C-alpha cells in the first residue's frame, strides 16, 4: 500500500486552501498531479503482493482504476491553470482544494480493502465534489448541487444499508471483523444468501445512483450541464469510476459466493436500460453539455453490461473504463471551450464551432467519433469486444440490442454534434474574447492521443494487470 | 455445313456485296408497292440510288448550332450498320464474322446507331428534333427487351450464342412451331419500330409532331443526309435478314440458298408495302402498348419452350 498517494493530495489540498496566491495554487495542483501519477506508477510495481489482513493496499483492480483516475486528473490539472486564468471572478481556493482532496479520497478508495472504508471514501468524495458543482454560484448551479447532494446522499445511504446487510450476512456466516474483501471472498461460501442478495441489490442501487445508472442517474444531466467542463470531465471519468469500483468489489464477493447469475441479470438489465434511457434523451438534444451527460449515462450502462456478460466482456468493461474516461475528458473540455467562446450551450445559437474555435471544434468532433466507437480509438476496441462476447457466448439478443442501441445513439448524437461543429457561426451570439490557445487545447490533444494509442497498443504489464483485475471481478480472491 | 475455304470466301464476298449494294432497293420496292396499291405509278424502284448519287454531289447546308457530332452521327450510323450486317447470316450461310456472343454485339450495335442518330438530332437544338429523339429512345426501351427475349428463346433451343448458328439452325425449334412464330411476331414488331415503319411511324408524312425518325433528320442535307438515307435502308436490310433467316428452307445448295434469301427479302418488302397501304399509323399513345405486345410475344415464346 502507498500512504503517500493518499496523504500527498490531501496535504496539497490543505496548502492550496491555505495560501492566497493563485499562481502558487495552480502550481501546487499540477505538481501534485504529476507526483501522484509518478508515485502511482512506482507503487504499481508491486500490485501483485497484497499483504493479507491489510485494510489498505493496492491490488490489480484498485490499481487499474486509480491509474485511470490519476491520468485523467493530470489532464484536468494541466488544463486547470488556463481555465482559472479565464475565471478570475471565482475563488480558486475551494476549487483547487476540492480537486486535490478528491484525488486523495480516490486514492483512499482505490486502496481500501474494507467495505466500510470504501463507503466512507465514496461519501467523502461526494462531499468534496459538491463545491465544484456549485462553482458558478448561480441559481442553476445551486439547483444542480442540491439535486446532486440529496439524490447522491440518499443513494449512498442505501449503499450503507447494503453494506450493513452484507456485513450481517457475513456475521451470520460466522465471519468476524475485519470484513476485508479478501476474507469475505474466501468465506463467501458460508454467508447467508438472502442477506447477500438483498445487500447486493441495495449496494447496486446505491452505488448505481452515484455512477449514474438509469433510472437513478437523474442528477447527472443537471450537474454536468451546470459545471465547468473541467469538473464535468472529472465527474464523468473520476467520480463514476470510484462508484463503479465500489460496486465491483461487492460484485466480486457476490460472484465468489456463486451468486453471479443473479447479479449478472441485474447488471445486464441496468446496462440496457441505461443505454436506452440515454438514447431517448440524446435524440434531438439541444444542449450539448447535457448531451455529454447522457452519453456518460450510456457508457456507465456499457460498463455494467460488460461486467454482466462476464468473461472477456468484463475485462473489456474495465478497459472501457479507461477509454471512456480519456475520451470523455476530451469531450467535456472541448465542450467547455466552445461554451466559453459562445457564452451558450444551446443548439440554435452554437453552430460552426470549427470556424470560431477550430481546435476545440475538431477535438469535439473527434471525441464524438471516438466515443461512439470509431476504430482505432480505444472505445471501439471495448465496444467491439463486448458485442463480440455477447453475441458469441449465449447472449445473442443482448448483443443485438447492444449494437442496435449503439446505432440509435450514434444517430441521435451525431445530429447535434454536426450542427454544433459545422456550419457558420450564428449571428445572434456576440463573440466572447475566448480563443483557443495552446494551454486550453494541448491537454485534450494529449488525452485523445492516449486514447488512440490505447486502441492500438497496451503495454504488457498493463495487459497483465487488466487480466488479473478482470479475474478478481470474476470472484477469484 | 463443311465448306471449302474457297466457297466460304465466295460466300463472304457475296455477303459483303449484298450488304453494300442491296439496301436502297428495299425502300424502293416498298414504295413501289404502296404506289401501286394506291393506284399511282410511283417512283422507280431504284429511286433511292438516284437520290443518294445526287445528294453526295450536293453542297450541304447545316445549322450553326451544331458541332462535329452532327456530321459524325450519320457516318457512324452507317459504319455501325455495315458492321452489324457482317454479323447477320444472309440465308443459311455463316456470316463473315461469327463467334459466341455476337448476338449481344449485334443488338448493341443497333443501340449504338440509335445513340449516334439521337445525338446528331439533339445537336441542332431544335425542339422538334428533340421531340423525335425522345420518342426514339422511349420506344427503343421497349423494343430492346423483345429483341433480347427472342434471342434468349433461340439461344435456349439451339444452345448457341452466335447469330449464324442461332438463326440458321433453330435446333429442336421447328419452323412454324408455336414458339418460333411468336418470336418472329415479336421481332416483326421490333422491325417496324426500329425502321420507323407504319403503324409505329410514318416515313413519309411531313407533320413533324407525329414523326419519329424523319423529324430527327430535318436539318441534315447533302452527304450527311445521303448517309442517313443509306444507313436507314441498311438497317432495314439487316433486320429483314434477321426476320427471314429462321424461315428459310434448309440444306439447299448455295445457289438456291441465296435465291431463297433474296426472294424472301422481296416478299417481306412487298408485305411491308402492302401492310403500310392497308393500315394507318397508331396514335403516339398506342405505340407503347403495341411494343409491349412484342415483348409479351417473345416472353411467351420463351416460356412455351420450357413446357
Amino acid at each position, binding site marked *: 500500500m502507498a500512504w503517500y498517494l493518499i496523504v500527498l493530495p490531501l496535504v496539497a489540498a490543505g496548502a492550496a486552501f491555505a495560501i492566497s496566491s493563485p499562481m502558487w495554487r495552480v502550481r501546487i495542483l499540477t505538481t501534485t498531479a504529476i507526483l501522484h501519477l509518478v508515485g502511482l506508477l512506482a507503487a504499481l510495481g508491486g500490485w501483485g503482493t497484497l499483504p493479507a489482513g491489510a485494510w489498505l493496499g493496492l491490488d490489480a483492480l484498485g490499481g487499474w482504476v486509480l491509474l485511470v483516475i490519476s491520468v485523467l486528473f493530470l489532464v484536468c490539472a494541466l488544463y486547470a491553470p488556463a481555465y482559472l486564468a479565464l475565471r478570475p471572478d471565482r475563488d480558486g481556493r475551494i476549487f483547487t482544494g476540492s480537486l486535490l482532496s478528491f484525488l486523495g479520497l480516490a486514492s483512499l478508495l482505490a486502496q481500501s480493502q474494507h467495505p466500510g472504508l470504501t463507503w466512507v471514501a465514496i461519501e467523502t468524495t461526494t462531499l468534496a465534489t459538491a463545491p465544484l458543482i456549485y462553482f458558478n454560484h448561480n441559481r442553476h448551479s445551486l439547483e444542480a448541487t442540491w439535486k446532486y447532494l440529496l439524490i447522491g446522499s440518499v443513494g449512498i445511504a442505501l449503499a450503507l*444499508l447494503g453494506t*450493513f446487510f452484507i456485513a450481517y450476512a457475513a456475521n451470520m456466516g460466522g465471519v468476524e471483523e475485519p470484513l476485508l474483501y479478501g476474507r469475505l471472498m474466501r468465506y463467501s461460501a458460508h454467508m447467508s444468501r438472502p442477506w447477500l442478495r438483498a445487500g447486493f441489490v441495495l449496494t447496486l442501487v446505491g452505488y448505481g445512483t452515484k455512477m449514474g445508472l438509469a433510472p437513478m442517474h437523474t442528477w447527472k444531466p443537471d450537474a454536468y450541464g451546470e459545471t465547468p467542463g473541467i469538473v464535468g470531465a472529472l465527474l464523468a471519468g473520476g467520480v463514476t469510476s470510484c462508484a463503479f469500483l465500489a460496486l465491483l468489489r461487492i460484485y466480486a464477493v457476490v460472484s465468489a459466493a456463486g451468486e453471479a447469475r443473479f447479479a449478472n441479470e441485474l447488471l445486464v438489465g441496468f446496462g440496457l436500460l441505461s443505454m436506452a434511457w440515454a438514447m431517448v434523451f440524446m435524440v434531438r438534444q439541444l444542449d450539448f453539455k447535457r448531451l455529454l451527460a447522457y452519453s456518460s449515462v450510456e457508457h456507465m450502462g456499457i460498463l455494467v453490461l460488460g461486467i454482466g456478460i462476464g468473461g472477456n466482456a468484463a475485462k473489456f468493461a474495465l478497459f472501457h473504463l479507461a477509454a471512456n474516461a480519456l475520451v470523455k475528458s476530451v469531450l467535456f473540455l472541448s465542450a467547455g471551450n466552445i461554451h466559453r467562446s459562445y457564452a451558450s450551450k444551446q443548439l440554435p445559437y452554437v453552430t460552426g464551432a470549427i470556424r470560431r474555435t477550430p481546435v476545440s471544434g475538431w477535438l469535439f468532433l473527434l471525441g464524438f467519433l471516438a466515443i461512439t466507437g470509431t476504430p482505432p480509438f480505444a472505445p471501439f476496441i471495448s465496444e467491439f469486444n463486448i458485442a463480440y462476447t455477447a453475441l458469441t457466448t449465449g447472449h445473442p439478443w443482448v448483443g443485438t440490442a447492444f449494437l442496435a442501441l449503439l446505432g440509435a445513439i450514434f444517430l441521435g448524437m451525431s445530429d447535434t454534434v454536426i450542427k454544433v461543429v459545422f456550419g457558420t457561426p450564428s449571428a445572434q451570439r456576440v463573440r466572447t474574447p475566448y480563443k483557443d490557445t495552446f494551454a486550453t487545447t494541448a491537454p485534450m490533444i494529449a488525452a485523445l492521443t492516449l486514447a488512440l494509442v490505447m486502441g492500438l497498443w497496451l503495454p504488457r504489464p498493463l495487459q497483465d494487470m487488466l487480466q488479473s483485475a478482470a479475474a478478481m471481478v470474476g470472484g477469484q480472491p | 455445313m463443311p465448306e471449302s475455304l474457297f466457297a466460304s470466301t465466295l460466300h463472304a464476298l457475296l455477303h459483303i456485296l449484298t450488304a453494300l449494294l442491296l439496301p436502297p432497293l428495299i425502300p424502293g420496292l416498298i414504295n413501289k408497292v404502296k404506289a401501286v396499291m394506291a393506284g399511282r405509278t410511283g417512283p422507280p424502284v431504284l429511286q433511292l440510288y438516284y437520290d443518294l448519287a445526287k445528294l453526295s454531289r450536293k453542297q450541304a447546308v447545316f445549322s450553326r448550332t451544331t458541332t462535329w457530332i452532327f456530321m459524325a452521327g450519320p457516318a457512324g450510323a452507317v459504319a455501325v450498320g455495315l458492321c452489324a450486317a457482317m454479323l447477320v447470316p444472309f440465308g443459311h450461310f455463316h456470316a463473315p464474322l461469327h463467334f459466341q456472343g455476337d448476338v449481344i454485339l449485334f443488338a448493341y450495335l443497333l443501340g449504338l446507331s440509335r445513340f449516334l442518330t439521337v445525338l446528331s438530332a439533339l445537336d441542332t437544338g431544335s425542339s422538334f428534333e428533340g421531340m423525335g429523339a425522345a420518342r426514339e429512345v422511349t420506344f427503343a426501351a421497349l423494343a430492346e427487351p423483345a429483341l433480347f427475349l427472342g434471342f434468349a428463346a433461340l439461344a435456349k433451343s439451339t444452345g448457341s450464342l452466335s447469330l449464324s448458328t442461332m438463326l440458321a439452325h433453330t435446333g429442336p425449334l421447328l419452323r412454324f412451331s408455336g414458339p418460333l412464330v411468336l418470336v418472329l411476331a415479336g421481332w416483326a414488331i421490333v422491325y417496324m419500330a426500329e425502321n420507323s415503319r407504319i403503324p409505329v411511324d410514318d416515313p413519309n408524312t411531313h407533320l413533324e409532331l407525329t414523326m419519329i425518325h424523319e423529324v430527327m433528320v430535318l436539318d441534315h442535307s447533302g452527304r450527311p443526309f445521303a448517309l442517313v438515307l443509306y444507313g436507314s435502308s441498311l438497317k432495314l436490310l439487316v433486320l429483314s435478314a434477321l426476320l427471314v433467316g429462321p424461315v428459310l428452307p434448309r440444306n439447299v445448295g448455295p445457289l438456291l440458298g441465296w435465291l431463297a434469301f433474296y426472294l424472301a427479302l422481296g416478299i417481306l418488302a412487298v408485305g411491308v408495302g402492302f401492310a403500310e397501304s392497308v393500315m394507318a399509323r397508331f396514335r403516339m399513345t398506342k405505340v407503347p402498348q403495341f411494343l409491349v405486345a412484342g415483348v409479351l410475344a417473345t416472353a411467351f415464346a420463351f416460356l412455351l419452350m420450357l413446357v
Partner: protein
Amino acid sequence: MFHDILITLTVLTNFTLVATSRIHKSIQVAAFQGVLLGLLPMTLGLGFHVHILLMAAAAVIVKGWFIPFLLRRALAKVHIHREVHPYIGYTVSLMLCALGTGMSIVLAHNLPLKPGGPFALFVPAALATLFTGFLLLVSRRKAITQVVGYLVLENGIFLFGLMLIEDMPILVETGVLLDLFVGIFVMGIVINHISVAFDSMDTRQLAELKD
C-alpha cells in the same frame, strides 16, 4: 420487552410524521424519534460499551437536539409553518406508510435472523422507517420537510446498524456518524443558500433544469 416498546413507538412516530402538516410538529417528532433510537441501545442488554454509549450520545444529541435546532432556526428565517398542498395528500400518505410497513414485514420474513437475538422487530422496523423517510422525500414540497425525510431515512439505517453494533462496531460507527455529518451538511446548503437564492424553500422552484 422494553426495546420492543421503543421500536413500536418508533414505527408509530413514522405514522405521525407522514400524517402531520405542520412543519414545527414534524421537526419535533423527528427529534423525538432520534431520542427513541438513542435510548434503544441501552435497552438491548449489551452492557455499556464505549461504542454503545457513543452511539446513544450521538443519536440523542445530534438527532434529538442539534439538527432540530438548526431546522427551527432555518424555519424562523423563512416564514412558513405548514406544508400546504403536498404532492401526496396526508390520508394517502398514511395508507402508503401502512402499506410500506406491511411490505417491510413481508420482506423481513424472507431475511432469516440469527437465532436468539433480541432483534426480531428490528428489520421490519428499520425497513419501515426507511420507507417512511422515502415517502416524506417523495411526497413533500418544502426543502425542510425533505430534509426531515432524509433524517428519518437515516434513522432507519441507524436502527438496522444497531443489530451489528456488538459484532462490528467500527463499521457501524463510522458509517452512522458520517451519515449524520452528511445530513448536517445537506442542511447547511438548505439553510444558507436555498432560502437566500429562492425566497421561499419550495422545491418547485428547484425544477428549472429539465429536458
